[in-house]
């Protein structure tokens, strides 16, 4: 099965990190990504630019409505994602728990619906 792992955290927490701590976190992310690539679970993934750069688009009666910012203001923001292949939810949970962002925020694990 495929699972999308949505990484949520407070952007302010990231901003508050020292350069050293941020460097260590990037290194952890690099190592995690390498390990899931090698184990064959990795199907994709990227960090996202901050929510300040987000644009929300809706179409109303054929007219495109554009607003600045994310759809919902939440305490934690979506900061990145991985797409992984896992045998079942237990394996997916095990992988999600290894994402460095799980330590400072939360990971939402969503099964992919096959088309």
């Amino acid at each position, binding site marked *: *099965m495929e*699972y999308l792992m949505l990484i949520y955290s407070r952007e302010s927490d990231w901003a508050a990190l020292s350069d050293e701590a941020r460097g260590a976190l990037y290194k952890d992310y690099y190592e995690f990504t390498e390990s899931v690539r090698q184990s064959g679970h990795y199907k994709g993934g990227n960090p996202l630019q901050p929510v300040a750069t987000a644009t929300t688009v809706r179409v109303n009666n054929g007219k495109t409505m554009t607003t600045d910012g994310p759809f919902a203001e939440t305490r934690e923001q979506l900061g990145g994602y991985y797409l992984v292949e*896992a*045998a*079942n*939810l*237990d394996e*997916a*949970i095990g992988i999600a728990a290894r994402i460095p962002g799980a330590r400072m925020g939360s990971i939402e*694990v969503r*099964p992919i*619906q*096959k*088309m």
Partner: protein
Amino acid sequence: MTPHSKESSHEVERVFRTERQRALATLIRLLGGDFDLAEDALQEAFAEALTRWPGTGVPANSRAWLVSTARHKGLDRLRRQSVFEEKWRVLAWTAPRFEPPDVSTLEGGYDGELGDDRLRLIFTCCHPALAAEAQVALTLRTLCGLGTEEIARAFLVPVPTLAQRLVRAKQKIRVAGIPYRVPPPELLAERLDAVLCTLYLVFNEGYAATAGPELLRVELCDEAIRLARLLVELLPEETEPKALLALMLLHHARRAARLDRDGELVLLEEQDRSLWDRGEIAEGLPLVEECLRRGGAKPYALQAAIAALHARAATAAETDWPQVAELYRLLLNLQPSPVVELNRAVAVAQAEGEEAGLRLLDDLDARGALPGYHLLPAARADLLRRLGRTAEAAGAYREALTLAGNSAEQRFLARRLKEVEVGRFS
């Protein structure tokens, strides 16, 4: 209907009642983890047994017959469904809501039990990815065979709410890929905790609200004990299931003494101990000793040890309070929780005096650790009453009264409030 066939249908129902759980547990596995399909197929097999067995007699291995008949029915349905889904996909150009299991992978092979399927079922129903209330509902529906209406009544929720809870839980198991298995060793300890927690939730729901004509509540306790026994049987190496079983037995043993003739709540210290169920106590006590000896000081073992000290005391005055307080201290180290702190404070009050207990309770209160929990002001009120500080006691009883939800508890608190008020003014 001839008397003979009527007798047979009773026999069929008896077989079905005793075999249902194991047959269902195996079928869910054989049908690719689809709970609904397995339930429906088993129901169809039962209907067929009702028409067939009165003529042929009950087969020697009735469970195997039910499983194999239900499996064929389930697979037939899956085949029809996958043909339908395929046609629908082509016609409507839509995707199915979920991937139906590949029927060919489910065909053939051994259709008997594999290990104990009931253990797979327990761990799946109590998977931590399901909400606690969904785990409880699914456990009672699937493992205990209780009806949706019965469960809704026991938990005081509307039937549609409970039905929806079950639908969502089953859907999540299928769509999110919750595996139908006993967790591997590295996950077992953690998952076992979730299972024990669910069983204890079921038990407490039955135990905490013994008021009223709700017989089903007692049934919840019985079911929790039955499942704990099953867990003990299936995982003989683990001590915590055994400790939970002992804990539940020792609590359950007091049920006849917990309410007086008028249905009013009777505190532990005032209970008529001759009403305690000696059989359940005799079964529970050696289990506690075994768990402490083999497994050491683990959370359920400690709680069972506390219950054992109460069970051993012939009168309330003979309770070994210093040891109860010490066990709560150990439990608090393992599982920091304001409710355990509250219990420890009550034990300390008995062991070292009301003042010492009150200090701990006031500290809890000052920290705002248990907002809205009626037992904190109720415990404070009790100690204040015993210290003769009746005005403060009355205030605390009033506070507890506004927070208590159970009517038997409300009546008890109102009675105590009246007593301290009368004592004060007389």
